[in-house]
């Protein structure tokens, strides 16, 4: 909107990206690089979820199914028909976007409250999980399958596989954030702020609220689907456990709530904190679930607004 805002946004995004880009120089071990990649993957999925839940209050509880259906479609097509993965990933991405747009359409057409959209999408998540296990001849059920290698061109030989993936994800992140920022500073950004504030008033003032919501669900889910596919190819082994409610949806939800809904930096910080926490908690085995449960309760009892809005309020810094 105004020049200052634009510069402020650019600086903050630049700082974040530079820090992220330097991390592989500090953490070079194979395990550390894997964790760094997971960090970026979850961050991108959280940004996608933020577009849907954070900006338009549509409670989707099927991030895992969106990411997973994208991966299963593209991975299986690539594996079974020998198609170049880069050619089928867009198909998976579009599928995820289409599914989300469909749910969003139903929600606005039937005027579903958040809780009912949540349950509908949760049903879809669980149907997806059951289908993957049920269609074992195609999906390999719990055993899963090994997708073909995704070629990253000269990057791989230059940096090694993990680093190549990492910088590919950094590029995707930069593109995402730049688009995100310009959208937020455009009329659509204003419409999003208005909708978050008061849907009925937005409609009366002339905003096509339905269209904005469906579009955001489509865009957010495309990002989730695209990242979800990269997650599977990066993991080099695809099993339902990657995309389960407990292993993906809940973590993404916690990352977003902790970081702060409807902020640009929130998903980045949230993904960072909980990727580290996840690694610390890993040795606990089944108790990890307990720990996540407790964290979720604490977040919603004491910390509903999220860390970025909280810092913003305390320090008056113009965080985005």
């Amino acid at each position, binding site marked *: *909107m105004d020049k200052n805002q634009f510069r402020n946004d650019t600086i903050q995004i630049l700082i974040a990206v530079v820090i992220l880009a330097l991390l592989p120089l500090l953490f070079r071990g194979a395990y550390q690089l894997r964790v760094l990649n997971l960090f970026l993957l979850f961050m991108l999925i959280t940004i996608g979820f933020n577009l849907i839940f954070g900006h338009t209050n549509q409670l989707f509880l099927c991030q895992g199914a969106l990411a997973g259906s994208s991966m299963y479609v593209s991975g299986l097509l690539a594996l079974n028909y020998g198609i170049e993965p880069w050619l089928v990933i867009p198909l998976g991405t579009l599928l995820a976007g289409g599914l989300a747009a469909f749910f969003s359409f139903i929600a606005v057409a039937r005027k579903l409250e958040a809780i009912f959209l949540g349950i509908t999408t949760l049903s879809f998540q669980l149907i997806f999980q059951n289908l993957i296990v049920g269609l074992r001849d195609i999906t390999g059920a719990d055993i899963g399958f090994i997708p073909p290698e995704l070629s990253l061109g000269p990057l791989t030989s230059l940096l090694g596989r993990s680093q190549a993936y990492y910088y590919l994800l950094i590029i995707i992140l930069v593109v995402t954030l730049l688009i995100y920022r310009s959208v937020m500073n455009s*009329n659509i950004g*204003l*419409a999003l*702020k*208005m909708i*978050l*504030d*008061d849907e*009925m*008033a*937005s*409609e*009366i*003032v*002339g*905003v*096509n*609220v*339905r269209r904005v919501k469906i579009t955001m669900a489509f865009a957010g889910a495309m990002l989730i689907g695209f990242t979800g596919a990269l997650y599977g190819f990066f993991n080099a082994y695809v099993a339902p456990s990657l995309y389960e409610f407990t292993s993906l949806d809940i973590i993404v939800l916690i990352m977003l709530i902790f970081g702060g809904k409807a902020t640009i930096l929130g998903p980045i910080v949230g993904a960072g904190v909980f990727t580290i926490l996840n690694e610390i908690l890993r040795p606990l085995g089944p108790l990890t679930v307990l720990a996540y449960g407790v964290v979720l309760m604490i977040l919603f009892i004491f910390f509903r607004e999220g860390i970025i809005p909280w810092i913003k309020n305390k320090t008056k810094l113009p965080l985005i």
Partner: protein
Amino acid sequence: MTIILEGKSLTKYFGGLPAVRDVDFEIGQGEIVGLIGPNGAGKTTLFNIINGVLKPDRGRVIFRGKDITGLKPHTVCKLGMARTLQVPRPFLNLSLLENVMSGAIFGNHNTIARSKAEEIAYRMLEVVGLNHKHYVIAKNLTLQERKKLELARALASNPEIILIDEYMGGLNPAEVKEAMELLQRIRKEYKVTIFWVEHVMRAVMQLADRVIVLNQGLKLAEGKPSEIAQDSRVIEAYLGGGVV
């Protein structure tokens, strides 16, 4: 006088009970028409039907010769019909400037540039008398200021007609006078037709060209304010039967 807005036998039921029944009306270009009636008469429901918040069970709404029945509020707004609400709903977490710009950007029939929208917003905030508070966040406003802000937001969309749902409630006599001057000015300077629900009778009776009276969802009477004030049916609806 050309007719700008027309309602034909508008009817709406809530759970089997009629809220608005067979209401016909015509509003001419440039008029100020008051819509009055006791609580529960169906005034707000009628407004909701006109601008598309509710779909009528029967009847049509014609706006500038076009049938707009069943169109969504955002489309109706772009066609040139703005609206303010009984309980004002500005965007509480946005600045006053952004609030009014939202009207200019999204409510306008034509696409307008941001800089132009900002210019309009400044002007409208001045018109309603909030020009010293551009960067204040709307949740810090008093109820009266919120009403003004909502009016500015509605005006910013460059409407042909504006539906105002109670503007004067809670004002002291001096403020009522000021508000009346504001409405006059809006009509004169911006050529906006005004369809206006109001409980402060003094204001309606002085300002409106015509008054429509609703009671129990039915149109009870229609005419010049002086005629309405003498109409025994109206008096009975307001004050109860057996009036002196």
